[in-house]
């Protein structure tokens, strides 16, 4: 890169030289830390993504050296390219923080907040965003939006109520597969991810929609309700895969592989393979190779994100030794006892009794099979 192609940009009073064509968000990520705006819809590996969620809005206080006028509105940093001499305010701008708090509130308005039963909990970007920019309370007092359920086949679970309409999964299907069968239907506050008529997503690369989903709207059915991500230990591994690079992260407990994902960087995006291509993985690697023997383990993977999955547990050398016993060994041949089978409609122990239909508080008697108490 020649000298002429470098642009000087100052973000939150930190100056950096970046190649022309770099976006403000990418420049901010190079600086790192708090200076990098949160991004819920932008995904650097997906062409055309970004601009929609409005969480990465920043204030451009100086347009460029040539035209120093500030930009009249906050701009989406993911879709704004830097100009030479540009000055940007992110966390140093009251306006930005105010707008961002507004966006977080909007995103959470209809979100079910069902983190306790959501597989994404612990690695959810919306959790991170709410933690950093949201308020503990909501001012929304109306019924939250719900959708009809759509089955996307045996591998992928769709929870539309959790979706923030980032469009990433649509771009993924467009750019990674030859035939897209899901899309955005309807418009406005009723827009939803769906296939219109029940169709399963079965392209061999479609599993990547799970990795790009910033929330728990698209989750891995083979991992559903199996474990919390923070109890698992991420290990880099690879296999000789005829379809994809075969470079993955295994999420293990002892020797048991609970789930397989692509390798993600600190921004939650798919890492590039050594040959510089995005390391998307195929469905076989993701859903079918669930034995340690399927893989060549490279070593523990450090997760450097703010989420709970990165909290101490996996950082540095802590926790890199395997637990002595696997779950199988602990259980000593017994099958695990199902304490609670959580469905979307709350059913506790007895599927015939719906908690929602019980008048007043429930107690032990409610679930006693021998009693005649009417629910």
């Amino acid at each position, binding site marked *: 890169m020649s000298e002429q192609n470098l642009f000087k940009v100052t973000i939150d009073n930190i100056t950096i030289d970046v190649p022309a064509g770099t976006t403000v968000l990418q420049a901010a990520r190079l600086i790192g830390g708090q200076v990098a705006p949160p991004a819920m819809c932008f995904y650097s590996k997906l062409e055309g993504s970004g601009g929609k969620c409005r969480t990465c809005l920043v204030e451009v206080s100086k347009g460029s050296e040539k035209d120093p006028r500030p930009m009249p509105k906050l701009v989406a940093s993911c879709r704004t390219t830097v100009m030479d001499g540009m000055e940007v305010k992110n966390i140093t701008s009251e306006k930005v923080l105010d707008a961002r708090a507004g966006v977080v509130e909007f995103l959470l308005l209809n979100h079910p907040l069902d983190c306790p039963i959501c597989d994404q909990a612990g690695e959810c970007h919306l959790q991170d965003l709410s933690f950093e920019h949201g308020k503990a309370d909501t001012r929304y007092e109306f019924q939250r939006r719900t959708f009809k359920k759509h089955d996307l086949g045996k591998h992928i679970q769709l929870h539309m109520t959790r979706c923030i309409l980032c469009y990433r999964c649509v771009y993924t299907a467009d750019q990674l597969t030859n*035939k*897209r*069968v*899901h*899309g*955005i*239907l*309807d*418009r406005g506050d009723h827009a939803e991810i769906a*296939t*219109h*008529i029940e169709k399963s997503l079965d392209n061999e690369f479609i599993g990547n929609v799970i990795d790009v989903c910033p929330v728990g709207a698209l989750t891995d059915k083979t991992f559903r309700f199996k474990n919390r991500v923070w109890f698992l230990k991420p290990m880099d591994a690879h296999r000789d895969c005829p379809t994809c690079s075969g470079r993955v992260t295994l999420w293990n407990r002892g020797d048991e592989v609970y789930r397989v994902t692509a390798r993600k960087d600190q921004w939650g995006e798919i890492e590039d393979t050594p040959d510089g291509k995005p390391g998307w993985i195929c469905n076989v690697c993701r859903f079918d190779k669930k034995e340690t023997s399927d893989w060549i383990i490279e070593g523990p993977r450090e997760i450097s994100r703010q989420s709970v999955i990165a909290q101490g547990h996996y950082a540095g050398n802590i926790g890199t030794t395997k637990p002595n016993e696997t779950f199988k060994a602990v259980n000593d041949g017994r099958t695990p006892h199902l304490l609670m089978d959580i469905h979307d409609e709350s059913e506790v122990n007895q599927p015939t009794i719906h908690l929602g239909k019980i008048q007043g508080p429930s107690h032990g008697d409610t679930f006693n099979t021998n009693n005649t108490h009417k629910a």
Partner: protein
Amino acid sequence: MTYTFNDTQMAELNRLVARYPEGKQKSALLPALHLAQDSFDGWLPTELMDYIANLLKIEPIEVYEVASFYSMFNLKPVGKFIFEVCQTGPCMISGSDDIIAYIQEKLDIKPGETTKDGVFTLKLVECLGACGYAPMMQVGKIFREHLTKEKVDSIIAEYRATVTN
């Protein structure tokens, strides 16, 4: 059910597609869906949308995405005549609420419903660009403007007559 355009309809589709450059036939999607909706039962069943996708050489999901976005495309069965009554600001201040209530009473249906005989559907819509001639509604291709209760009566009678004869 499968759908097929007849020769006239197919010629019209080809005329629509020819307006756009080579390879940009997807641009004809909106006009093509209008044609499809008007040619058959006034709404767009999945099979019909698939047929259009096939004709325009695009994926069915691209058609579903578009059809569900635009309010003029009906994705559920409708009556023979749809009363699309405007309820936005200028019509509201000119008394559209009364007109809507009156139509509901006359036809004994709620917004979004179709009469039992399948003749009329009542649909509440947002501004149709006839604010100076409010209150108004659209029936098929035309606008019925300056609505009064008497006018609604005669419009209903007018359309009913076309069915019974």
